[in-house]
């Protein structure tokens, strides 16, 4: 929208080269952060191990080639996101392990979950099939107490990956102020730890989620 004689693009050209460069860099930063709905650049994170990351990306790619749609490509102009969240180890007992997944409010508050999958790798389960119960726990609406969102019973026959559809749980989580999901694994007492040791193994548990920017209500006219 030109105002008077000047176009918006003309403003940059009137600056001295050094000031022009600074202005463009500031604009680039501001533009990227605004589009990602980030108030500022995230502080230096603690990235997952390279091996864990590569394994997760490989499995994501395998899942994507199975699916009909191509995630990440905006259909109908809505921005799409793929999220990869690695578990944080929580408390554990002789027969249970807790894993925590935290999602940023910036993404959770502005998107809706299309699909979410939990990837769990079972370390050597011993002889025969081992019964495992996977519970998804969420903070309750009234307070910090956790409530069970879903429960799945599995028979683990051999070491390897298991995937679980956790779309519904993550979807309801994204509407909450603290988007944190806890996964409880209940295993037989003699199994020991069913998971590899944290950050030292390429088989660390993770969640892959596909999300899409929320739309404001549309008004249809005839």
């Amino acid at each position, binding site marked *: 929208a030109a105002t008077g004689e000047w176009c918006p*693009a003309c403003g940059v050209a009137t600056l001295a080269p050094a000031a022009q460069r600074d202005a463009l860099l500031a604009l680039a930063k501001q533009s990227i952060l605004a589009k990602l709905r980030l108030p500022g650049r995230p502080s230096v994170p603690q990235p997952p191990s390279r091996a864990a990351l590569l394994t997760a990306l490989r499995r994501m790619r395998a899942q994507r080639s199975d699916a009909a749609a191509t995630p990440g490509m*905006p259909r109908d102009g809505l921005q799409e996101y793929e999220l990869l969240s690695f578990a944080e180890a929580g408390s554990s007992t002789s027969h249970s392990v807790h894993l925590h997944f935290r999602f940023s409010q910036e993404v959770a508050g502005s998107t809706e979950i299309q699909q979410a999958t939990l990837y769990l790798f079972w370390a050597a389960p011993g002889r025969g099939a081992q019964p495992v119960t996977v519970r998804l726990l969420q903070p309750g609406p009234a307070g910090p107490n956790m409530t069970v969102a879903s429960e799945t019973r599995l028979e683990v026959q051999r070491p390897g990956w298991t995937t679980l559809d956790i779309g519904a749980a993550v979807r309801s989580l994204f509407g909450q102020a603290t988007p944190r999901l806890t996964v409880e694994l209940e295993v037989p007492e003699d199994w020991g730890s069913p998971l590899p040791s944290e950050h030292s193994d390429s088989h660390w548990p993770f969640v892959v989620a596909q999300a899409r920017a929320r739309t404001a209500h549309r008004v249809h006219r005839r």
Partner: protein
Amino acid sequence: GVDCGADSRMCCRREFFVDFKEIGWEDWIIQPEGYHMNYCAGLCPLHMAGIPGLAASFHTAVLNRIKAASAAAAVDSCCVPTQRRPLSLLYYDRDSNIVKTDIPDMIVDSCGCT
């Protein structure tokens, strides 16, 4: 569209690359290494209005000159992006999750006069 040269005055696309390392963002943006923040700059005299870049047809240019001569509008047109594409980003958020998204319309591929 036309890419700007050293002494371009007419509407063109000026290339500008933001290196994430240079601005200290390489620790949270995994890919790409930078952002091609191209922008449009230059003059758009009235006879160039509606031309998508300078390579428009002779007939369009003639018609626009006639329009300009009729002085129907007194304000110059604007040099604006006519083609844009998304910027794909793979980054760490503040919870150390990895996010991949395509931000639409972030890279200017060509410019023209409105």
